[in-house]
């Protein structure tokens, strides 16, 4: 099985970079063999992209684990960790429509990729950390979000063992 771990976000935009920091940490742990080896092929990467380009990164993998920042509509609790699946993402954006800058949603991108016959992961797991500040430039996340990094790393490593 081929697994891709993707840290998403902008590492220079305060809490937006939480996913990238998770990816760096996982990369470090895997490289230092602190975790028992599995038979799986695991790649770790990071990117500040969404939609199509993110889907394209996933081509050829059986499973993808994403770590990302999350702005939850309604009540907010910075640092809270959500484990989401693609079905959850569908529920968050039910219209599948993007008025966004330059791309489409991940769900639409994956549906498109599948319609085109690309080998895309059956399993996409998203560790989403609720953020406090994604509008100011800084390399340091806020305290609550920084505290979520270790638990997310641990959770992703657990996923990788299965």
């Amino acid at each position, binding site marked *: 099985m081929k697994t891709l771990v993707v840290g998403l976000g902008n590492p220079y935009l305060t809490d937006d970079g939480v996913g990238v920091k998770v990816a760096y940490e996982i990369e470090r742990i895997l490289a230092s063999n602190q975790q028992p080896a599995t038979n799986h092929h695991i790649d770790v990467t990071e990117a500040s*992209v*969404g939609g199509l380009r993110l889907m394209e990164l996933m081509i050829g993998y059986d499973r993808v684990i994403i770590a990302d920042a999350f702005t939850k509509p309604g009540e907010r609790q910075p640092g809270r960790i959500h484990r989401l699946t693609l079905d959850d993402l569908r529920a968050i954006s039910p219209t599948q429509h993007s008025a966004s800058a330059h791309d489409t949603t991940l769900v639409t991108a994956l549906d498109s990729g599948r319609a085109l016959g690309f080998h895309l992961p059956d399993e996409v797991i998203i560790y989403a950390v609720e953020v406090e500040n994604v509008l100011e430039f800084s390399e340091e996340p806020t305290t609550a979000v920084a505290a979520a990094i270790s638990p997310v790393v641990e959770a992703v490593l657990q996923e990788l063992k299965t």
Partner: protein
Amino acid sequence: MSAKRITIDPITRLEGHGKIEIFLNDEGDVDKTYFQIPELRGFEQFCVGRPAEEMPRITNRICGVCPEAHHMAATKALDALFAVEPTTAVHKVRELFYSAFYCTDHTVHFYALGGPDFVVGPEAPAAERNILGVIHKVGVEIGKQVIDCRRRNHHVIKMLGGRGVHPVAGLPGGWSRSVSPDEQKEIVEISRQNIEFALFSLQLFEDVVLANQAYVDLVLSDAYAHRTYYMGTVDANNHINFYDGMIRVVDPDGKEFVKYHPKDYAAHIAERVEPWSYLKFPYLKNVGWKGFVDGNDSGVYCATPLSRLNAADGMATPKAQAFYEKFYETLGSKKVNGRYQPVHFRLATHWARLVELLYAAERMLELAEDPEITENVRAIVKNKPTEGIGSVEAPRGTLTHHYVTDEKGILTKVNLIVGTTNNNAPITMSVKKAAANLIQKGTIVTDGLLNKIEMAFRNYDPCMSCATHSLPGQMPLEVVVWDAEGEEVERLSQFV
């Protein structure tokens, strides 16, 4: 009560991305519209105190859409900052990389964003107006070609730029790796495929849009037309160049207004601040700010694919030149003093983008076949840094980076004018015009309002976030309509 008495507090309007507010007058007609986006704060403070040579790697993170454009503008600013003139081999490798980027970027805009309005149809439900809808309409085979085009060019970007998503190869005066003969062969083949794909896309545009009178009427309708100044980068022959050249501005009649070196931008561009928006409104200093209005007396200018075509005398490659001529002839432009009159129909920007796609592909092939690209691309920096300005044409407008450092190269001042910011005033005007057509005498045509307004700004390919893309990974567009009494009368959003 006069509409003027409505107070607008920007603080209360920061909760959403891409929020549009429409204010009506006493007659129930559109008085003002505000197109608002959240501003990312503290970029200059973030950069000041860092070594300038980090900028190509920092700025390519501020935008998840066009990292390559920021990387290149930053690299060129470093050339100027350290006063090291790149060799022609360096320029060619960089431009080759940049052409591959254009091939991916213009492709995704047409097929994933702008195209769905035409290919799937402007009246189609929002849920179908996306790339999946395009695939359903035109077939899986074409969808595959779109993704293949992106994949092969991302491969080139990774090969030349050192990384797949956020390139790292730009150095002051140089580029961190040259091209091997094997890589050169591969890129030549990829460039040829890009030309075929661009020709195919232009044919698709003709078959789907130009062959459909309803679409042609829409493109040519006054609802989506504005007479403004146009900006673009041109080479020595006044042909479009994305990577390097002089900035040329033409007036709404197509007469050259000014041509200047990018380093002199501050003498020509001023930035207007409006109390309701954190994003500034650049305008032509030597025309002056007259408000959000069309015409030769208004300093509003536009910097988009359409603008670049209008600002240039033609394309530097033969196939793109043929389509350039077809573009103007078809849209009814007359030649005056040897050059076509500007096309003011904003929806024609989608077609202009495809003409540029073909140019990028042809230019890529020219560069890929050039033996010089396999030469050494290193440079030695000897001069003390002071100040540097670098500029490229980002797909969505002229992009300028301006750095000032101390003698050790530590940044003391940073200023960026990003592609979309150039178009802030024209976008505002286009949104207002689209709204005014749908809201008259207090009657609001809510059906299709959101989409028609989206179409008005989508042709600019606005890169609104320039970085933040927290889940759910799309920006909600919200339109709020207020009457002259300051009461909210309508609120539309694509989030259910």
